[in-house]
């Protein structure tokens, strides 16, 4: 192709590559962070939505997104079971710790498997329920991603080995579960739990049951939440996630714009005489701006493609290595595309206008 734009890019491959990498970096930042945020949020939401119990009964502050404590007495389960409209109440301990590979958080739950599985319609697809203090069961995703099976061991609580006795499906809440007694023992919290799941009888309005629980003197001072509210609040419970993502998007636009601007600025300094030649040929300011902008556009477009490819590959590799989930959405992909191309084109505008305003005689005399 005998085009000035294409030949100029080919003439300086290293600079073109650096510019493309700069744009790709901006695109990657947006894609990976929003993909991770969306992936983790959707994953939590999916697992929470498998819980068929309609009500969470807990102590205030006993259960947050990234922390939980076992400060609720399991005796409340008995009280709750007696309330009209309640089918069953199952105490659960949720323990959250830093991921084994230093990334994110992992959860372990302590539950009595039979009532918990019956309440939420879960089934063991392999093995049996945990019974001893060092036995656990895991969900299918955990088994698949960690290449684990019945009989394998998993280190929890600072390296203590736990034997996998079963694999369950579908995924619900924490991927690793042990018996409630084993968890109480591990946390040295006998008779305690983090929350109690309450399942209402068929045809009973959960809100009516909530009101009845609130009216009971013996359950006063505790927190009662509907499961559906917890699911919709997952994104909102991560403080300033939206602000962080928007700041990230702005930062990415600045990175892309600055890299392209610097590259184009250097380019026009090097090509001053060529710009003088264009002027001598009668090229208008608009034409000169368009030549430089087209070059920036091509670089940005290549950076955009590279950014998307790297994001998908990096997301796949991180998922394989650390189990973190990435889910890319069209909306954020569009934002990344606008940032990559828009940042590049805007960044090139100043050098382009500067080139267009060069004095032709001085430009022609440039060495």
């Amino acid at each position, binding site marked *: 192709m*005998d*085009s*000035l734009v294409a*030949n*100029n890019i*080919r*003439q300086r491959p290293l600079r073109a590559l650096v510019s493309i990498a700069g744009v790709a970096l901006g695109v990657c930042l947006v894609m990976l962070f929003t993909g991770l945020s969306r992936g983790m949020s959707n994953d939590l939401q999916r697992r929470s939505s498998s819980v068929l119990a309609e009500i969470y009964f807990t102590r205030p502050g006993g259960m947050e997104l990234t922390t939980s404590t076992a400060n609720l007495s399991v005796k409340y389960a008995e009280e709750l079971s007696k309330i009209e409209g309640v089918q069953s109440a199952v105490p659960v301990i949720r323990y959250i710790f830093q991921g084994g590979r230093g990334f994110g958080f992992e959860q372990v739950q302590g539950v009595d498997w039979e009532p918990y599985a019956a309440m939420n319609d879960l089934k063991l697809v392999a093995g049996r329920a945990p019974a001893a203090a060092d036995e656990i069961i895991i969900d299918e995703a955990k088994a698949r991603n960690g290449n684990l099976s019945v009989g394998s061991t998993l280190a929890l609580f600072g390296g203590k080995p736990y034997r996998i006795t079963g694999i369950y499906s579908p995924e619900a809440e924490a991927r690793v579960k042990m018996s409630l007694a084993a968890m109480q023992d591990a946390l040295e919290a006998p008779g305690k739990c983090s929350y109690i799941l309450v399942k209402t009888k068929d045809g009973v309005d959960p809100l009516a049951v909530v009101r009845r629980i609130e009216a009971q003197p013996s359950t006063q001072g505790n927190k009662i939440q509907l499961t559906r509210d917890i699911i919709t609040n997952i994104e909102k419970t991560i403080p300033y996630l939206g602000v962080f993502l928007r700041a990230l998007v702005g930062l990415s636009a600045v990175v892309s714009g600055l890299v392209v601007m610097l590259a184009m600025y250097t380019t026009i300094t090097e090509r001053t*005489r*060529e710009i*003088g*030649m*264009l*002027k*001598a*040929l*009668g*090229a*208008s*300011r608009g*034409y000169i701006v*368009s030549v430089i902008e087209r070059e920036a556009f091509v670089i940005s477009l290549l950076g955009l493609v590279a950014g998307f490819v790297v994001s998908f590959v990096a997301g796949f590799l991180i998922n394989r290595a650390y189990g973190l989930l990435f889910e890319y959405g069209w909306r954020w992909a569009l934002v990344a595309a606008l940032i990559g191309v828009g940042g590049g084109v805007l960044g090139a505008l100043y050098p382009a206008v500067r080139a267009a305003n060069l004095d*032709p*005689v001085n430009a*022609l005399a440039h060495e």
Partner: protein
Amino acid sequence: MKTILQAENVEKVYRVGSMDVAALRGVSLDLEEGEFLAIMGPSGCGKSTLLHLLGGLLTPSSGRIVIDGEDLTAASDAKRTDIRRRKIGFVFQRFNLFPTLTAEGNLRLAERIHAGGANGGEDSGERRREVLSLLKLEDKMHHKPLELSGGEQQRVALARAIVNRPAIILADEPTGNLDSENSAIVLNMFQEMNYRFNQTIIMITHNPEAAAMCRRIVQMRDGQIVAPNTGLQV
């Protein structure tokens, strides 16, 4: 004969620090269509400044320049650029070809700019081939400037200047970087363009032999034309 260029009492003053330096002091020049004019004179006498003014690359401090009926001095910067695009072709001492483009690519770019950014039109390919053939560059059209000799590069520059059939070609010492053999070839090409297409050419040169090939020679000194018509006819 149609007058293609008129320069009336053109002056150019450069500001150097707090000093005003007069590069041209009232230059007047008329040129008819088809003329081949040489401008001679010692270095610093204002030849290049005059050529840049005639090509609309500079604006005069006073005076008037009319190219093919269009007043350059009354025109805005954009209008001057437009007149340059339509009516003027430049040939420089240093060839000034785009190094990343082939010989043909350089001509295509000139056509594209002449066409206002669009492709040169249906007959542009034929015209390009005709010009390249005339300048004996058919086998060099896919070569980049660095793959060509100095003489070939200057022939490409001449082809680029002429491909859009401008009203005037302004050549600033076109043989200044060439050996005598290539100089002769390039000058012959200029002459052939002048004869074959009745192309108006103004050429700055230090070389009396090059000037002798022109139909008219003007001499400049200290920013003025001191011998307006040497009247040499070839």
